[in-house]
């Protein structure tokens, strides 16, 4: 199977530095921020962003974890239902700027589910979306606010974000289907 590397470890590091700066610029600091990562890889990217914010602003925004399984829109179909993992948002999102972090945006359906789940926790003043990769093919009117890399892909291709925490090394690759 043909595989192409879109981002290597250094590029991913620099991208996180840039995205964090953009977040701080747009929100004028980190005071009202909370960061929520979408399981599994969004969580690790979110952790890195929080670490970077802490380094720059000396503030550690609260961090949560979202498992969107129970909010999926394909549960009514004849598909394998995924295992439910725990959502952990141990703080109030009321009137906060929520930075929602996912690894890849594709159809936008995961983000739709994540937005609905966050809204069940309260009414944030905004939700802003970070994704490491935007691979196009949106099926819903949802766009990220902060993007690592935009790539044109075929639906048959697979885009994978590999991270040290889960996969042993940092890289973004595209594989022919």
């Amino acid at each position, binding site marked *: 199977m043909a595989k192409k590397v879109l981002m290597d470890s250094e590029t991913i590091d620099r991208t996180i530095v840039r995205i964090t700066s953009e977040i701080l610029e747009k929100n004028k600091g980190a005071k009202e921020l909370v960061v929520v990562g979408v399981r599994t890889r969004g969580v690790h990217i979110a952790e890195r962003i929080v670490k970077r914010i802490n380094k720059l602003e000396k503030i550690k925004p609260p961090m949560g974890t979202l498992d969107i399984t*129970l*909010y999926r829109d394909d549960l*009514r179909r004849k598909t394998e*239902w995924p295992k*439910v993992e*725990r*959502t952990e948002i141990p703080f109030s999102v009321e009137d906060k700027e929520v930075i929602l972090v996912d690894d890849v945006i594709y159809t936008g359906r995961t983000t739709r589910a994540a937005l609905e789940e966050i809204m*069940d926790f309260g009414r944030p003043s905004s939700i802003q979306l970070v994704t490491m990769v935007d691979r196009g093919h949106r099926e819903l009117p949802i766009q990220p606010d902060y993007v690592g890399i935009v790539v044109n892909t075929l639906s048959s291709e697979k885009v994978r974000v590999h991270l040290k925490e889960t996969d042993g090394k940092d890289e973004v690759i595209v594989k022919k289907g």
Partner: protein
Amino acid sequence: MSFKHKHILGLEELTAQEITLILDTAESMKEVSERDVKKVPALRGVTVCNLFYEPSTRTRSSFEIAEKRLSADVLNFTLSHSSVTKGETLLDTARNLEAMGASVIVIRHPLSGAPWLLAKELNSSIINAGDGSHEHPSQALLDLFTIREIKGKIKGLKVVIVGDILHSRVARSNVWGLIKLGAEVRVVGPPTLIPRYIQKAKAKTYYNLEEAIEGADVVIMLRIQMERQESVYFPSLREYSRFYGLTREKLKGADKDVTVMHPGPINRGIELSSDIADDASSVILDQVSNGIAVRMAMFYLAVSAGRNQ
């Protein structure tokens, strides 16, 4: 690993991996009950019918809350209000419910095997909420969940089940579940109340409570089921209580961190002395909230398996 059972009828027919998957899923479900808005949309559009042929408050309420937290539509059928009193058979009643759109039926019935009959004849997912003196999987799963939460594991624990093992569906489901997950299970009670399946399940039988309790990590006390004592299994309640009622004194030989559990409702002074009942009640309240999470997990996994078939 995926869950293959469209029906959850008993723990005897589940594997250790399947039981563990239910417990793991329940752990994720528990978080939903801690939110301000205690509801997720997973079972939107699914109609669940609670068909109860025996009186029950806590089990039925727990199922109903679990259904509602998953956004299912809920239909309650209880003996006193239904056409059962007009002579309709179980299958006819259930077929009617299915015709009204129910795709999951939770059934409690005084006859052992009733849920299996429905599973064979209907298209719906069937969840056993207790059949006769046979199985009560949701209660055993929540006991397992609670034990795992308190002790951090189940494998290797010494678990004692005390009392009317013969008539207790909670005991039967617990014996299967605990053995499959690697616990050492000891049952203790009067010889007349120890059934034969205990040998098949490889649990150990005791007739003396102190001996059984030696080194125990968990003691599960069963309720004496006055309604099922059709013949005389022991001479008198007082005698039963003297030999098999749990007191501080009899608990001395157990592990110092022993947990005492009871499926409720407690007959104070008969199965448990009042001071132990007070200690046990804190665990009982944990069990109530864990029961909702476990039942949510059962619905999620059974409906998921049904969709895949």
